[in-house]
């Protein structure tokens, strides 16, 4: 992870293949490999949000059970496996830990405005975009990446984060915007 020539992160195509195998044949070996790779990171994520070791362990297990149950819904041509696992961990945390719902759209709703038909990216393109995202994250100034991390790993609102860091709320928002803009630019090149 410290070697800057090696793209950081976990090989998403391996993870994708494992999730597909879980869906297709309920393959326990793939599930165990996925658990060994991602379980400790999901636990780390949930520990940051809950600051409670027992809750983090329980919610990590809930997340992995949901990954097992929902594996058939994962479409490896649509996006990164890690993004899919992230959304499952996030929703598990919200359902169990937050008192509010997170309203979400229904992809099959008749009132949904559909996207123009676009070609699905190839697996190679997806892989390149995953690597580009990691490189762009690494290249961000620390002050920006810190705020992105806080946005994802801390329940506090931007105004609370701003107060804690002794920054005006406008500065916090503009750093987040700058960081997101750079990641967006890095990925758009790979589209």
């Amino acid at each position: 992870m410290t070697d800057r020539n090696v793209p950081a992160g976990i090989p998403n195509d391996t993870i994708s293949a494992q999730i597909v195998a879980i869906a297709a044949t309920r393959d326990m070996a793939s599930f165990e490999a996925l658990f060994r790779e991602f379980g400790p990171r999901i636990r780390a994520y949930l520990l940051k949000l809950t600051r409670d070791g027992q809750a983090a362990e329980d919610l990590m297990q809930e997340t992995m059970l949901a990954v097992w149950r929902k594996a058939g819904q994962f479409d490896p041509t649509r996006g990164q496996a890690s993004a899919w696992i992230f959304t499952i961990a996030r929703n598990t945390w919200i359902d169990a830990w937050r008192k509010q719902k997170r309203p979400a759209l229904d992809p099959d709703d008749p009132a949904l405005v559909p996207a123009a038909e676009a070609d699905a990216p190839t697996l190679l393109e997806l892989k390149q975009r995953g690597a580009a995202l990691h490189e762009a994250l690494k290249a961000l100034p620390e002050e920006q990446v810190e705020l992105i991390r806080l946005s994802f790993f801390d329940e506090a609102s931007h105004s609370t984060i701003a107060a804690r860091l002794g920054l005006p709320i406008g500065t916090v928002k503009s750093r987040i915007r700058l960081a997101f803009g750079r990641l967006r630019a890095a990925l758009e090149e790979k589209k």
Partner: protein
Amino acid sequence: MTIRHHLNDDLLIDYAAGTLSEGWSLAVACHLAMCPQCRDQLALAEAMGGALLEDLAPVAGPDDSWETLKTRLANASEEPAKPVLRPARATLPEPLRSYLGGDIESLKWRNLGNAKQILIKTGDDTTQARLLRIAAGKPVPEHSHGGRELTVVLTGSFHDAVDSFGPGDIEDADGSLTHQPIADEDQDCICLAITDAPLKFSSRLLRMVQPLLGI
């Protein structure tokens, strides 16, 4: 239909992170249902969440974590997915219909001068969600916001001194804006409005009756 007013990055990121409160999230979800472009941006923000998750230093758990998970898996019953009933066509998008308990023709509006409204119940006590129906060509009384107001246009359109908003557009107004939205002539404008503080009306009379009207 071309959407000109999109989600701000800070709303998008907080929604992707799951930390945005329920009231604001309802407005974000309605915009997303009407805006494929912002759905792509959400996918990017969630990919970022995935990348950050991959980069986290692993935290070891109890020695029997995997055994426990396997046992829970063996004992878990595979509940069959409940079929979701959807109408063949709809005007208002999900998740809004579920919050309202139906689509546009089933709603019971309360009169409010040139406008009608329905208060929407959410689990979020830091915001108030409402559906507004502004009569075609008519203004909403001039007001400013004690805090933030998110407005998503669902049908019709409105304009104020600065800008105009059509179906799918989202307006993000802070406490400094005083405006008087006017519905365009051709049809009533229905929008979802989320606020985190009572509106401040310029008219003293309206300020007095405000508590009675629940606005």
